């Protein structure tokens, strides 16, 4: 099994990652608590809300707490209401020296933070043309996933349920279709409220998951980060090992008894 662990890499835009757990950095009680949880999660991709970061301030609290980590900082455009705002934020991040990888979020509704598919598509097109590696947050819409993939998005990131809702994989069937049809990694983002939800997404064949609220607002964020790490690994191994079919053949009158007679 160690072979599986060392060789089963997540590859996004030519870059490989051993960890399949992405973590967010919002909602934590302090920078120090957040950093301990990030480290415990083993994540190699950590998202940062650009609106929270003072890019002009070299001693920005959030960036200071993340300094020196062995992970890729993935800035996100949360708060952007339309494509124009998301593109401006992404460009600000690149101008400040961050790598041109962007988790694209266009969420015009501040209540459920649901992604606007139309504006996301527009922004993705502009950013990809401009040389960004784009990882778009999206509704679990299989057709939109194909459209984003066709534009050149590095992944698609469908939601399990609304951000912060902790409701788990409410979009399970649609995510199954996305995974079945996708040529780029599928990262289930948002709504995963318990390690079991993350394991479920990985068992389904998701290539990775992103978790924030469930870790940040746990009583022990470090402990919860570790629990998610283990759940993601367990779910991935279960997927690779091949889950037995869950459908049970029902005993009924033989349908093929006439054959071979």
């Amino acid at each position, binding site marked *: 099994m160690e072979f599986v662990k060392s060789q089963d890499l997540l590859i996004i835009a030519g870059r490989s990652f051993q960890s399949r757990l992405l973590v967010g950095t*919002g*909602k*934590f*009680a*302090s*920078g120090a608590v957040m950093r301990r949880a990030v480290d415990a999660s083993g994540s190699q991709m950590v998202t940062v809300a*650009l*609106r*929270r*970061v*003072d890019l002009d301030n070299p001693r920005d609290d959030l960036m200071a707490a993340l300094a020196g980590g062995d992970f890729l900082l993935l800035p996100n455009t949360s*708060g*952007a*209401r339309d494509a*124009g*705002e998301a593109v*401006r*934020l992404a460009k*600000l991040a690149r101008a400040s020296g961050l790598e041109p990888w962007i988790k694209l979020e266009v969420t*015009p*509704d*501040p*209540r*459920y933070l649901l992604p606007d598919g139309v504006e996301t598509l527009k922004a993705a097109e502009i950013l990809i043309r401009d040389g960004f590696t784009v990882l778009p947050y999206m509704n679990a819409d299989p057709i939109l996933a194909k459209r984003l993939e066709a534009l050149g998005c590095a992944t698609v990131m469908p939601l399990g349920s609304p951000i*912060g*809702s*902790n409701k788990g994989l409410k979009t399970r069937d649609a995510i199954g279709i996305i995974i079945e049809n996708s040529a780029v990694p599928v990262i289930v983002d948002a709504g995963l409220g318990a390690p079991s939800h993350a394991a479920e997404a990985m068992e389904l064949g998701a290539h990775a998951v992103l978790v924030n*609220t469930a870790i*940040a*607002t746990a009583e022990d964020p470090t402990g919860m980060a570790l629990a998610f790490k283990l759940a993601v690994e367990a779910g991935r191994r279960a997927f690779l090992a091949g889950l037995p079919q869950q459908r049970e053949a029902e005993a009924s009158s033989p349908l093929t008894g006439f054959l071979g007679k």
Partner: protein
Amino acid sequence: MTFSEKLLTVDSQSLLHLVNQVTPEQVERSLARRETNFSDFLTLISPAAAHYLEPMAQLAHNTTLRRFGRVILLYAPLYLSNECTNACVYCGFSIRRTLPRITLSPDQILAEAKYLKDCGFRHLLLVCGEAPSIVPVAALEQALDLLKNDFASLSLEVYPLSEPGYLQVAAAGADGLTLYQETYDRNVYSQVHPAGRKRDYDWRLEAIERAGEAGLRRLGIGVLLGLHDWRSEAVALALHADWLMKRFWQAQISISFPRLRHAPDSFAAPHPVCDTELVQLMLALRLFLPDAGLVISTREPAELRDRLIPLGVTQMSAGSRTEPGGYLHPAEDGSQFSVEDHRTPAQVAEAIRRAGYEPVWKDWDYQMHENHGNNRQREAQAGA
């Protein structure tokens, strides 16, 4: 339909009658439900629910944690002017009061803003009284223009503007508006606002809608607690917030809880609201509106503010001075209301950390929507 028109269709008296009849069993049923609808909200502001503050607080705490996390956004008011043509009986800026009238010059605005920036603030609330001949929209635009590159977010708490006025300030860099109706009761409103433009209840109530139409993305409302029966105000406040959320679904709606404590001269709050009632109101609103920002200013004393943090608060001011120029030149008189929490911003931030929350100074980026107002204005002009 405006909210003002909608409110006329609401029979507050019968609703309040129902509120007073609520039984403990009804409260328990409401608390057991997954979501709090308007009828549950009425149950939770009832006298019966006053005995259930602890379970309400637990639910409100968890709801807020899930939606907002362990963070409190800090902001500071910057008073541009205390000139005012209104005669509001509770207000320190009333035209009927004798006080040094000050309107900051551009250099003074910059100096006060620099002080606040050095304290750490990136979210400012620009405040003035209602004196458009002394502080016209152009002066607001000028102030916004002076500050917009140094701050992440600039909101206004100024006299009601027309929709073109809101388009102008949005183009100049404002992204939010805070405007308290003070009281939703028309009779009380007219008693406490005896003179000035503010007498026009509907012009004020509809201002927040004009701002929403103009594209301002943070809309703050509130009542001045103490002017009228708090339960009656709570009904209108909850309906108003809910209505704004549905109509301006892209805006962040927040509710403030300004409470009359020590109003100037001998004005005594006719319906004083005690701490317990303030908490009940906050908790009920949090459960009814899980996504609303809840704001507590320095009108409240330090000890109470610290205890309110885990009950659903999302934003706090700190180190506030409510007289123009007061950060660099504090004055005894000339302030709008008396500040009860006298701690420095750093001390408030430390108290937030002690409560297990992170004080957040920046949660927006002005540069993200730099041209937003201009675009809206161009669209408006093209459509005209």
